[in-house]
Structure formats: C-alpha cells, structure tokens
C-alpha cells in the first residue's frame, strides 16, 4: 500500500548521522557516516511524488528524482541506482558536494512554509551511489566501437563526465591530465573528510573499464599543443576541461611572507600530496597554531577545517560580508561551526604582519558594514573607518577565488576568450576552433561540480554528432 500524502507529510526529515565534532576535527576521515537502509527508506517516503516534480528542474542534470526516491521507498535499490546513473555518472560525488539547498532541495515542495524541510535528495543520492559501488557490477553498455579518437584535457568532473559519455557512444577516448593523479579539484582540492578518494577512484576505474585511457603528467599547451593533438596525434575532436586553477591574492602588503599560502597550495599539499601524513610522506606543510583563512566559500571552509585537523588551536575564518552572503554550502558552514571554527564576519584584511624572521605573526583587519546591494544583489560591504585591529596568527591562507589559468589558452591563440580569459563556447559547448569543445570552470569561472558535469555531458553529445558527421557515420539510435 503506497502511503497517503498525509502519512508522508507526517514524517520528519531524517538527519545525516555524523561523527562527533571534536573527534572528527582531528582526523581526515569522512564527517558524514551516511544513511543506513532504514533511514534511506524513511526519508524517501517523505517525497510526495509530485507529478510536475519541481525538484527535477532544480537539478542541473535533470535526474528523475521522484522516480528514484520511489524505488528506494519500495526497497528496490538496483532500480533506484539505474535511474540515478542514467542521468548522473558521478552520484557518489554530487550526493556529497552539490549545493543541494540551492538546487533540487531548494525547490522541493516540502521546503515550503516556515517549518518546511525539503526531502534530503543529496543524502539519498549518496546512499544509492555508495550502495551501487558496493553491490553492483556496473557494466555500462557501450555502443559498437567507432575507432574515432577523442582527446579530453583535464580529469576533473567535466572531463570525466565527457569521457564517459563518449566512451558509451563507442569512441576511443584519451584523457590527458597535468598532475600525477586524476580527479581535478575532487582530488587535489576537496578534502578527504568531505569526499573520500575511494569514491573518486571507483569512478575513474569505471571509466578505465569502459576503455578510457588516462595519461597523467601531460600538460597540454606544453607537452602537446591543441593543434598537434588534432593534426599530428590523430584526435578528431578535443574537449578542454582544464579548470580555473589560478589562485588570486589580495595584493596587500605581506602576502609573500613565509606562512602565507593560497588555498590551492595548502589544499594541494594536504590532499594530493597527503602532507598531513608528513614525515611518512615527503611533502611538508606548515602547521599553524593560530590560523587565519580569508574567504567565505567552500574553498575557505575546506581550508579552515583542514587547518583545525592539522592541529591548529584556533582556526579562524575571516570574511568581509555577513553569514547570509557566504557562498559556501550550508552543510559545510554548519559542520565548521560544530568543529569549533571561529568566524570573524564583516572583517577584511588590509595587511599581513611579519616577524623579523619573515614568518607571519598577524593579520591587520578592518571591520565592515553592509551598504547598498551591488551587481550580484548582495549588499556591498563598506569599511568602518578607524576600525583597524590585529589578529595574531602564524599561518594565513588566502581563499578568495581563482582566475582562468592562461597556460593552455596562451598556447592556443586562435581560441576565442572572453575578457576575463575564460573560453567562449556556443550552446553545444563548441569553441571558436573547429573540433574543439570546452566546459567546466574554464568556461564558467569557478562554479560547481554538477555544472561542470552538465557541461561535460552536453559537450559529449555534441562531440559525438560532430565526429560522426566528420567521419560519415550514422547517428546512434
């Protein structure tokens, strides 16, 4: 007997089991434990199975959310996994890192009203993805091999998704990755306590099983140019997904002192190079006692929580606007607070102070207040005159954003860029250069995992059409 809407409404949102805050803030194991079968079933029964499923529109890749939740409620995990995977090839990742509260869950009808709480779509997605990883032999059906070679530059979510789409369509796909490990930001940026490497490894393995080749240590633009890939190495098309990894600094005095990191460097040392395990591994990292992280996004949140785990007595987040304007995922902010991260809001650094030995000793800040809304609709922070004060600290991490990395684009002068250096594409993902497509952060600027995946999927379809036309092959049914 299916539940009535009234019965469904009576169930309250199940909360995600988490590890104890002051235990987890000392190690790098995952914070969220995950739903068990019972919690998953109960939570999925909260879904009202809306006919016009607003939640589906809220998901950038259009997962049939009510359908997969219905399968969970019925105990059909295999069925749920099939629906989920048909729209989203990396659900174990998006279930963990999507800003659900701004997407599928924001528009869920159950979010309405003062005490409304959306169905926990993300947590359920994570549950099914993990179940499938353990229990299903996920052989993807591949179309007959076409022998057409396509190159993908970068192995972040955009590149991985595009490679998967193209492999499914029978093409011979090679991913070129600059670093020694695949995964992009998922590997080098987002910490283990939020997204364990085993989840990424499983995805990468699945692609390899589908015949995708991943060649690391290749910096496109230096090791090969785009033109060489097209004209000498025999690739019929290229998808560029090299991310937006050029760290920004504030250009304030003291930024080159010892003990000032970009978030990219700090997180790369800790995640990619596993410096938290020094001296068991060879890459060192500066462990601060009082650490200040500047910024209010996911990157800042990951950095400050990493600092705590690396032993900081006080890990302090400095952000120039107020809590409401913080772009970080709600769950991260909440977890950070539980982990005793100190928030200094409406505060902006003006310079970094050094000791005579050129190590950081503090950061001078001013207080801010919120003025009129700016272009982004957020209220613009303005400096409170004469409010300078110093926060003593021995490590500063700048997490104030990234810009387009010009390494590849400079080596490809005929690729049209916008004024910020991001690659321009049309609605299919095609760039100004024939046979070359692009997506993810190198097109959007720092965005999200699911948007990067959406781009990879769309470009995969466009590339399939392009290469089939080019080689005179019929379209797949």
């Amino acid at each position, binding site marked *: 007997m299916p539940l009535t809407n009234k019965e469904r409404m009576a169930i309250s949102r199940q909360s995600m089991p988490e590890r104890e805050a002051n235990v987890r803030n000392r190690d790098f194991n995952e914070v969220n434990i995950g739903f068990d079968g019972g919690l998953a079933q109960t939570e999925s029964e909260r879904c009202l199975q809306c006919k016009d499923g607003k939640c589906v529109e809220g998901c950038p890749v259009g997962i049939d959310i009510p359908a997969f939740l219905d399968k969970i409620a019925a105990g059909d995990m295999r069925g749920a996994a099939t629906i989920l995977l048909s729209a989203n090839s990396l659900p174990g990742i998006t279930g963990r890192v999507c800003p659900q509260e701004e997407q599928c869950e924001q528009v869920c009808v159950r979010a309405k009203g003062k005490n409304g709480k959306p169905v926990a779509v993300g947590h359920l997605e994570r549950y099914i993805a993990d179940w499938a990883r353990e229990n299903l032999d996920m052989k993807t059906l591949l179309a007959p091999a076409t022998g057409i070679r396509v190159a993908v530059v970068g192995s972040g979510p955009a590149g991985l998704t595009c490679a998967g789409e193209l492999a499914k369509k029978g093409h011979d796909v090679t991913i070129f990755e*600059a*670093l*020694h490990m695949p995964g992009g930001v998922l590997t080098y940026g987002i910490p283990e306590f939020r997204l364990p490497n085993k989840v990424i490894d499983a995805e990468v393995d699945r692609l390899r099983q589908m015949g995708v080749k991943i060649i*690391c*240590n*290749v*910096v496109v633009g*230096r*090791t*090969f140019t785009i033109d060489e890939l097209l004209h000498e190495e025999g690739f019929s098309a290229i998808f560029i997904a090299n991310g937006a*990894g*050029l*760290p920004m*600094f504030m*250009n304030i005095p003291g*930024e*080159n002192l*010892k*003990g000032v*990191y*970009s978030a*990219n*460097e700090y997180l*790369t*040392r800790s995640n990619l*190079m*596993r410096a938290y*395990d*020094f*001296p*068991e*591994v*060879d*890459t*060192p990292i*500066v462990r601060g006692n009082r650490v200040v992280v500047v910024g209010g996004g996911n990157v800042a949140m990951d950095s400050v929580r990493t600092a705590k785990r690396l032993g900081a007595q006080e890990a302090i987040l400095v952000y120039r606007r107020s809590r409401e304007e913080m772009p970080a995922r709600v769950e991260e902010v909440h977890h950070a607070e539980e982990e005793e991260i100190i928030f200094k809001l409406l505060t902006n650094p003006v310079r970094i102070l050094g000791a005579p030995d*050129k190590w950081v000793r503090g950061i001078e800040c001013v207080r801010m207040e919120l003025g009129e809304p700016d272009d982004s609709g957020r209220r613009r922070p303005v400096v409170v005159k004469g409010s300078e004060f110093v926060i003593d600290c021995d490590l500063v991490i700048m997490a104030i954003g990234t810009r387009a*990395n*010009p*390494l590849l684009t400079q080596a490809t002068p005929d690729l049209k860029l916008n004024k910020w250096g991001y690659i321009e594409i049309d609605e299919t993902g095609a760039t100004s250069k024939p046979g070359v497509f692009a997506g993810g952060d190198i097109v959007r600027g720092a965005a999200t995992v699911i948007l990067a995946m959406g781009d990879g999927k769309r470009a995969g379809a466009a590339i399939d059409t392009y290469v089939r036309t080019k080689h005179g092959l019929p379209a797949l049914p």
Partner: protein
Amino acid sequence: MFPILDTKWLASDVKWFRIAAPLVAKHRQPGQFVILRLGETGERIPLTMAAADAQTGTIELIVKAIGKTTRLLCGKEKGDAITDVMGPLGKPTEMHKVGHAVLVGGGVGTAVIYPLAKALKDIGCHVTSITGGRTKELVVLEEELKKVSDRVLATTDDGSYGFKGTVADMLTKLMGDQERPIGAIYCAGPVPMMRAICELTRPHKIPTIVSLNPIMVDGTGMCGGCRVTIGGKTQFACVDGPEFDGHLVDYAELADRLTAYRPQEKIALERMEHECKLAGVKA
C-alpha cells in the same frame, strides 16, 4: 614509469641521468624543466633538463644531492625507473645573438647553465662559462661545459683549483676586458651569488638573466607557491619564469621563502639516514 637508461657521477654529489620520457623530449627547449616524483609517497621536485633528444625520446638531468628527494634520486641506477616525470615546464630561454654571452653557474646552477651554453653557442654566440665552487670538489661540469663553450673558467674561493676567488670576482675581471665586451649574462646558482652578480652588472647596464629556484608544487600556475617578486610585481616562477631580468628580482624575499621548510627538510633527511643505517646502506 619513466625508465632510467644511463647514469654517471660527475662529482661526489652530482649525478647525470638519461631518462626515457618521449613526450617531454619532443617539445623540450633550453631553459625548461620537469617536475618529478619518486614513489607514491614522494614529493614533487623541479629539475632543469640539461638536454633532450626527440629522436630517442630521452631527456638528461644533472642532479645535486642536497636533501631527501635528490639523494634518493642520486641513489638510482640504470634499470631503475622514476614514477612521474611531467613537462616540459616553464618558458624557454629567450635567446638572442648577443655576441659575447657569459654564463655563470654556482653549484647546482651549473646544471642550469649547461644547456644554455650549448643553445647560445648553436645560435652563434661566443660563449664564456664560469663555474665556481667553494673548493675544488665543488666545481662541477667543467669538462661538460668545455664541449659547449668557447672558454671555461673555473673558480674556487680557497684557490684550491683554477682562479682564486668567487665567480663574481671572475666576472669583474671579464667586465674589464675591452677586447670582448659582454652582450648578456646568464646566471644560476645560490641566491646570494645571483644577487652579487646582478649588483655587479647593474651599474654597467649589462642585461643579466637569472634562473630562479623557488620551491614548487604543481608547476602549472595552480598553487602560487613559487611566487617571486619581480620589479615589485608578484610572478609565478613555474609559468612566468623560471628566468627573469636579474636586475628586477627581490632576492631577499626569495632567499627567505626558500627556508620555509628547513625544519621539515631536516627531519626528512634524518629519518632517511636512520632508515639507511638500519638497512645497512649508505645514504
């Protein structure tokens, strides 16, 4: 994996390697470097390519054993392999027919100027190479440099070999030579040496290019760890360099930043020595 095809000791702590890395070899230009990593727990370190051959798909490195990673590397022999070799990285040297080119190398820096000497000679410069060390054992690559230079001048601080004095003293002498005015100077070595050379050439406005060696991680412009201040502006040495106009470099900052991991480097080395002792091998 990148197989080591051949090795040779050039000094008691300097080793030459030929490594199979076909993709890197194909595009390498003088002045460029690779980042390599040894094993799954290894760190990423930058090393200049002394030479490369696209035909055979090989690159050559000259490595001075100073810390854990370079010592582990120098312990490798023909038949061993390197886990990761990424490149070519950095901007190629901007080379012009400058007439008389003087190359100044100190310590590991000599490994960096060696390929430049060859390249500058190939485009028709008259090449003088100066290689210096505190004492005789620390003068490296003299023989190799002779093959690619018109003239090689060795210096030792203690006079135990060649000219007695620093490379800067030698350069002062050369600058006084009216017969052969210097068109440009290329310099690589310890920071105080590069700074001293630039102070010498600045009043004479002799173009001086230095190859900087900040600590690096990714080598693609992603981390900003390699930032240096050039003419008051922050630049990332791995993508904007590693060669810069030596008269614009903030050497004090570079020298400071190179000391950031001193305590950790010491720990890493001591642990390695301890493990080697336990295993009964020489570090």
